[in-house]
């Protein structure tokens, strides 16, 4: 298939890429742009390791073609921090031990952040549903739920405002 010029807005930077039209978004991000925070853990859109945000909503980047996302704002885990300052959700994960091996963490952070974008004050059950598409084999999820809950309650906001 003939390669096409594709412009992807990732973390506020527009990348011009020549891609085979069947290239998945996750492949464009990892293999062509070189941002390796998003991982891949399956071939069946089941694990959530590759979750990114598109216009603030979470989506598994293996479930889309890169060309489908032209004109949209893509945010990966690398886009959460601003000039080295961590986002509240990242601080919440650190403070609550909401990761272990870290392989699912990028995707888990994006699902959590997208949930908070959509629903700033989720109940615990809503948090669980919000991250249900992401498998974590290490933590048993509860520390992640506590992190998202604490973040929603504003525990990690103040420092960022400074």
């Amino acid at each position: 298939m003939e390669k096409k010029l594709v412009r992807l807005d990732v973390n506020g930077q527009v990348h011009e890429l020549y891609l085979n039209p069947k290239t998945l978004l996750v492949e464009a991000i990892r293999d062509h742009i070189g941002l390796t925070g998003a991982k891949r853990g399956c071939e069946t859109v089941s694990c959530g390791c590759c979750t990114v945000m598109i216009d603030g909503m979470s989506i598994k980047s293996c479930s889309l073609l890169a060309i489908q996302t032209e004109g949209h704002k893509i945010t990966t885990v690398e886009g959460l921090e601003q000039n080295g300052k961590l986002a509240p959700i990242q601080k919440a994960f650190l403070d609550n031990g909401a990761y272990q091996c870290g392989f699912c963490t990028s995707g888990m952070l994006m699902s959590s952040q997208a949930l908070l974008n959509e629903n700033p004050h989720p109940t615990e059950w809503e948090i669980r549903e919000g991250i249900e598409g992401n498998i974590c084999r290490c933590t048993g999820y509860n520390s992640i739920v506590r992190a998202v809950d604490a973040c929603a309650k504003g525990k990690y906001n103040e420092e960022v405002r400074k």
Partner: protein
Amino acid sequence: MTAKNTEKTKYTVSTTSLAKTKYTVLNTHVQNIDGIAKVTGRAQYTFDVKLPGMVYGKILRSPYPHANIRSIDYSKALKHPGVVGAIIGKETLGIKQGIWRRYQDLCDEQLLTVDRVRYIGEPVAVVGALTEDIAEEALNLIDVDYEVLPAVYEPGEAIKKGAPVIHDRFERNINVTRHIEWGDADEGFKEAEYIREDYFKCGGQAHMCMETRAAVASYTPDGKMTIYHSTQAPYYMQALIAPLLGMRESDVRLISTYVGGGFGGKFELDGAIFAAAVLSKKICKPVKVVYSREEDFIASKRRTPMIYYVKTGVKKDGTFVAREAKVYTNGGAYTGMGATALYLTGFFHSFPYVWPSYRYDGMRVYTNTLPSTSMRGFGAPQALFCSETQLEWIAKDLGIDPLEMRRKNAHYEGYEVPGQARIASCGMQQCLDEMQKWIKGKGKLPANRAIGVSAAGFMSGGIFNWFDTPYSFSSAIVTINQDGVVELHVGAQDIGQGSNTTMAIICAETLGVKLEDIKVHSGDTDHCPPDLGAWGSRQTLMSGNAVKMAAEDAKKQILEFAYAQAQSEALSKGAEGKFNIIYDMDIKNGWVHNVARPERGRDYKDVIKVALRGKDGQKIMGRGYYTPHRKGMISPAYSYMLQGVEIEVDEETGKIKLVDSLTAHDCGQPINHLGLIGQLEGAFSMAAGYGYLEYMPYEEGKLMNPNLSDYKMVRATEMPPANIAEIDTIEPEGPYGAKEAGEGLTNPTAAAISNAIFHRFGVQIKECPITPEMILKALKEKKEKDGGKKK
């Protein structure tokens, strides 16, 4: 949404501490030292490694469970545009390898087979290409001429006379046998007032690491090899792969900085590292091999399926007198760590109780299925599923409280498991107290709910040396820079359990400095001392002891200078040798001081500068090591625990829902508070999966659900609150009294779920994982039986 769902994370952690010491770093709230890398996406896993000129390798796998290979022709594949190279087993040294390398018979696996395949998915050929897609296409161009052989899948069939022989030297496919015995079980059963016999069947379980098996190998013309590998034990990988490549151990460098999970599945050589290494050596280019999820399911080993026969004899008051167990395990096609699992399952089947007589016979049987091996719990989850469910039924039959029966027979401090182990610390009684408190606090449960409890224990690292290493089991080196920053080099491997942080905490506490003063170097065999790695819950105790020793060594050297400095100052002020008290100096929080007069002291960093000058510029260096000696047959120390689960079962569908849980747990002195909670919650979720979700059905040697939409695991919505009651005993053999916490809790949960089902419906299910179909079948049978009685 119901109210119960909104309060789930309000978990409790209570602590009963037997320790009196106050620590400055140990067991305080700290963030993992590698956390920033992980929450910002900076952490580079083997999966992310990209080297200049790297090619992507893919493995052709056997479609047959058992076949001879007459010939392989990859010439067409080589002509495919973008293909860089290919290799088959005949071009390798063809060495049969195994991790039990002291026992040649048990080294039975060629990671790229030469002339025979023994399970579906076994590697047959490797192709390297410019992209993974091209490599995949090229696999279809390889011609393999198979002579299909009769296959056998179940141990019960494989040991029969006339069954297909899977390894030529092993009659009736008996791979290895294990016998454990103490006391006289035959006499014991004569004394018993109640005897019960049951047969159980325990399934396999996939490790399901989020990062699939992955390796990048780079062989260079100077005869050196660098391998990035997602592994639990870099030293093992280095030592195991070098001879297969005809290389010196030290010419192979293993790097594994971040590892996306291990769970017992990543400390043997796997197909990924071997394929990458042999192809790289052939074409002298970096080769990356990453398993797809399907490959990970069908070709990276699994928890060992077991068939258990259990006979238990007790007195009417619930005192245990005798137990006998006979076990067949489905070994699959090769040995791997399965031989260890066979021993440990037999040992932990006795846990955590005093059996005056005990007899275990285990037999590991080869079959034409995916090899089975170690997985978190290492044979104990199967052993305790069978033991703890049967004990629950016995208590019911005798009309006694199952927790009181456990209490009466529990291990205790000072107990010796005859010929096997000495128990130096044991919090079983306190765990039982906490569990009874939790159950009492629950009051009367709704009719559709029930609680099940199970006990367990586990080792803190194995003492066995089947690997036959001349090195210490663990080693650590501490050096101190002029600004006081400590370089800690360990061979311990962080696979997400947080060992880098644990080692840093032990080092900081021992030296008396802050956590941020410690830099941990691990996961690189060129720069870190050898260590057996992260398996068998060994690192906190063994590597921790090595780190503590290294830090003490360094500290002693610092204090020598501090003492001399203080002494000379005192003398200059006219104290004239009256400073005996000064011998007792210490460092805490970066303050070098006289213990009797803590206000008299100086900054640690100033002392370091003086010490450096005093040593003619040489750095202070502390060395530490640990190898267990005379610690029985299994391990230097044992953790103890009780797991309680509250469940709800839908009678229409048989579906289980976990509602609440309590873990009462004795891991000795906790080192990393947050890490401990994470280990317990994580082990619980994996163990619960083994109890009711994670099912590996095979048909004719083929796994029927090798993907994440059909292989079910606990997800966030299935995980109940995990309340924790910590019992902090002091383990004399552990650093600061610590013992294992990462693995043992995988052991009790399946039985706890089964016991809850038993209390809910009165049905005894002798299989795990317990599927809804099993529950419905048991309920139907019970209904028919009860109906029959009424007539």
